[in-house]
């Protein structure tokens, strides 16, 4: 479906990606592929305990092993006091960030880094780890957010006090923050309701699951310059984090981003980079390369929060929602900083509500520190609210899409946190879903059901810089600093080509490091095609202006008399193509632009799914899936579809099987891709997409963030489909076979 009116030459086409051939021939250099002369290999010693005091660390035996070049512990990190810093996408206390890199006095989760080794090869480094003696005093641990809030829970951080947006409590606690959105009169709203549904939900800790493990290669020179090559969503964020954690000036750090094998928010925070740098310095300024094993990725990087959510909503017989209340408890992991704020923003964002209250709690537990994961906190929240909405619709006998349409937000309605929405596309997206053949197709067969759910994500703009140079043959080299994680080189180059009126093939984009381009925020928050696209639009305008000036000089006419259209300069019947003019330049033409655009605007998705439930084993088969979304203008539709399909697939993983499983000692027991079960090709059908193209008026090419919205609705959509197929309301993620069998058994007991 396309509703766009502007006609473009390049935008909206589907050219091959510029980095494609390197990636299909195995030539592309990812982080683990970096090789430097004299390179050493580093490994990390990690805590076997969920919560323990470090009594002593003795690395003397490891240092005597042949081939071992350096060992570091937290003593090697500069001491950092409490300092709140804005790193990349999240705000952190640097002391906590430093403690997460290498545990200082306490380990707070199974897998917490304690020491690191550099050696001649990985095998020797591993042998050395076994020789480091760490004495622990094991402490009681707490894994669950609700339990961590209770009065007798073990306290993780002695100095932590609850923060209510500036108001600090005075008692030791595991609750880092309590936030609230509120408007209207809740009691009055519920009193007006004909139907009220209230349920409590639980969602598991889940991991981003990128296929490429974390890695970093670092060289700390004799003159205290630090060079880092790594897979990251943001080279500049790595640079800033290193500057803070290592206490060295930003200008002394050069970060070169390699190709990146997936991130989904998980490759923003640094883990190995500072260790590799410190090891390099200690090992006589030799480069040190570190890569995580898959088990380390799962135990020791940041997954997203598990959560407990209570939702209560009421509606009148006519289908109007009269009141909505929610309480969200998100597990931050070992240090404060869960995405509960975003969860609170998402949970009722789809609906116009006069009476609402949302309370969010950020709670520390003995799990790895949560980091961003695609629409952080959104899937948890939507799972809860969108299944309650489904139940309201069912109880009122209203079609679930119709029910949502009656309550859907539109321009001028208020978000739960107050501000008004500008131009948004929820209504159009709901209508597109309702009129899709999938929604009206008959679904027959036993234990089959169809579910729908909607989802919101706020998106982000961020800061972007880019530079372009015009070559003498009229082609253009584009230098950008946004890691290309899913085809953005193409969508960025396409926007420059469109601006310049040149063919896509004439633009050669390159992603470079911190030394070679202006500042760029991370590739995250669904911002890259929007924000960096805007930067190259500005670059393109500057280049055209400069080239127009050169044309005027060439013809010796006033610049105002030169017309520019479709890459051709014209004056009084004379014409010169961009290429011809480029060949006549005696001074080079280069342009840079830096932008920080704000009008990114939120996106909405509506997903439809058909499932079949094997009621004897509890296994759920996804039969058919359709994802509709207001995507703004789709620059490269194939990669926009890919975002919707990939987001849906991840959400299905959350829905059915993905979860962190701990033993009674607080150790993660399923730290492998065998037992942390992400969907395979055999677990999914083709995923239909509907691109609702309502151009974003806040962007020169109508771009709206796309990547995160599609992971918000799937868990709820699948839950609603399971209900229709098997008659049970699932309130816990994942909706694994055992849980479904248990729910069916409870249901039949209740019925009997």
């Amino acid at each position, binding site marked *: 479906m396309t509703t766009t009116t502007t006609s473009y030459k390049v935008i909206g086409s*589907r050219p*091959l*990606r510029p*980095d*494609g*051939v390197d*990636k*299909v*021939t*195995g*030539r*592309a*250099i*990812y982080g*683990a*592929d970096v*090789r430097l002369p004299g390179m050493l290999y580093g490994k990390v010693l990690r805590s076997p305990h969920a919560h323990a005091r470090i009594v002593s660390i003795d690395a003397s035996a490891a240092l005597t092993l042949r081939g071992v070049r350096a060992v570091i512990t937290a003593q090697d990190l500069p001491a950092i006091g409490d300092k709140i810093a804005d790193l990349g996408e999240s705000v952190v206390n640097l002391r906590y960030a430093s403690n997460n890199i290498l545990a200082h006095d306490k380990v707070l989760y199974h897998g917490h880094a304690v020491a690191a080794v550099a050696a001649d090869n990985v*095998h020797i480094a591993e042998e050395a780890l076994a020789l480091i003696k760490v004495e622990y005093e094991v402490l009681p641990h707490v894994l669950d957010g609700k339990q961590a809030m209770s009065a007798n829970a073990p306290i993780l951080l002695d100095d932590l006090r609850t923060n209510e947006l500036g108001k600090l409590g005075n008692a030791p606690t595991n609750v880092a923050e309590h936030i609230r959105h509120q408007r209207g009169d809740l009691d009055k709203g519920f009193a007006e309701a004909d139907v009220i549904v209230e349920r409590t939900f639980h969602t598991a800790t889940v991991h*981003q*699951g*990128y*296929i*490429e*493990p974390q890695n970093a290669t670092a060289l700390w020179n004799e003159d205290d310059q630090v060079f880092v090559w790594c897979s990251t969503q943001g080279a500049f964020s790595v640079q800033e984090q290193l500057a803070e954690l290592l206490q060295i000036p930003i200008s002394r750090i050069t970060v070169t981003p390699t*190709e*990146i*094998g*997936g*991130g*989904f928010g998980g490759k923003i925070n640094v883990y190995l980079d500072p260790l590799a740098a410190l090891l390099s310095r200690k090992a006589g300024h030799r480069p040190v390369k570190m*890569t995580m*094993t*898959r088990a380390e990725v799962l135990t020791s990087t940041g997954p997203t929060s598990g959560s407990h959510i209570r939702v209560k909503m009421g509606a009148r017989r006519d289908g109007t929602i009269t009141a909505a209340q929610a309480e969200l408890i998100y597990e931050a992991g070992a240090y404060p900083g869960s995405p509960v704020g975003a969860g609170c923003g998402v949970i009722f964002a789809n609906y116009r509500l006069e009476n609402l209250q949302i309370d969010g709690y950020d709670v520390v537990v003995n799990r790895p520190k949560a980091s961003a994961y695609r629409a952080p906190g959104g899937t948890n929240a939507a799972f809860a609210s969108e299944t309650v909405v489904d139940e309201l619709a069912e109880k009122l006998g209203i079609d679930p899409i119709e029910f949502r349409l009656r309550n859907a937000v539109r321009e001028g309605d208020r978000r739960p946190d107050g501000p008004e929405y500008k131009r948004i596309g929820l209504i159009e997206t709901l209508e597109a879903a309702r009129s899709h053949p999938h929604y009206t197709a008959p679904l027959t067969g036993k234990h089959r059901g169809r579910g729908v759910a909607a989802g919101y994500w706020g998106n982000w703009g961020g800061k972007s810089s880019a530079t372009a140079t015009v070559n003498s043959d009229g082609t253009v080299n584009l230098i950008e600093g946004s890691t290309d*994680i*899913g*085809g953005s080189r193409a969508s960025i180059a396409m926007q420059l080509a469109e601006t310049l009126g040149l063919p896509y093939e004439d633009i050669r984009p390159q992603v470079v490091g911190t030394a070679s381009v202006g500042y760029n925020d991370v590739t995250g928050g669904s911002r890259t095609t929007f924000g960096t696209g805007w930067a190259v639009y500005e670059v393109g305008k500057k280049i055209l202006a400069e080239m127009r000036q050169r044309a005027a000089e060439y013809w010796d006419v006033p610049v105002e008399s030169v017309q520019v259209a479709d890459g051709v300069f014209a004056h009084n019947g004379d014409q010169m193509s961009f290429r011809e003019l480029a060949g006549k330049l005696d001074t080079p033409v280069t342009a840079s632009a830096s932008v920080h655009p704000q009008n990114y605007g939120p996106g909405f998705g509506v997903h439809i799914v058909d499932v079949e439930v094997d009621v004897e084993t509890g296994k759920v088969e996804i039969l058919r899936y359709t994802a509709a979304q207001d995507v703004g203008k789709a620059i*490269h539709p*194939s*990669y926009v*579809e*890919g975002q919707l*399909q*990939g*987001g*849906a*697939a*991840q959400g299905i993983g959350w829905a059915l099987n993905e979860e962190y499983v701990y033993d009674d000692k607080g150790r993660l027991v399923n730290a*492998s*891709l*065998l037992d942390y079960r*992400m969907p*395979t*090709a*055999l677990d*999914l059908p*083709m*995923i239909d997409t509907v691109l609702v193209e309502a151009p974003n008026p806040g962007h020169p090419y109508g771009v709206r963030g796309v990547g995160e919205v599609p992971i918000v609705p799937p868990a709820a959509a699948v839950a609603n489909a399971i209900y229709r197929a098997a008659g049970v309301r699932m309130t816990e993620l994942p909706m694994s076979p055992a849980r479904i069998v248990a729910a069916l058994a409870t249901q039949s007991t209740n019925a009997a």
Partner: protein
Amino acid sequence: MKSKVIVATTINGEELEFLCEPRQSLLEVLRDVLGLTGAKEGCNNGNCGACNVLLDGVLVNSCLVLGVEAEGRTVETVEGMASGGQLHPLQQKFLEHAALQCGICTPGFLLAAKSLLDHNPDPTEAEVRHWLAGNLCRCTGYDKIVRAVLDAADTV
């Protein structure tokens, strides 16, 4: 104890010898000894398929093969798929269908798909999905990968 052994093998059609420790996997040898970094390490225990190679024409996880086992055998990696300046049809179709986002799983998928088409030149969607189930992709949702393989099968 001598720690390293000489292994004579054929990689991407080229006969060569390399030196490795018995404990080094074929994946380590390819990447660290021979500089063929197209095979990727995603899990190092056979659960993701990113390190897929063909060993005597059979699809294997190179992380689950010892380098010394390559003695006298033939190994085919993603670096050997294109020939004579021409991409393999699968490589071409993966590009045309946008069947990769981050690209880290792509070499493994390409070799798995090649192995499938070697056995079954005209697979159904279900057969493609079954054959590729040992390869994890976290970006695409598999839709475009499956389409690319089906399209390549029509081309081959």
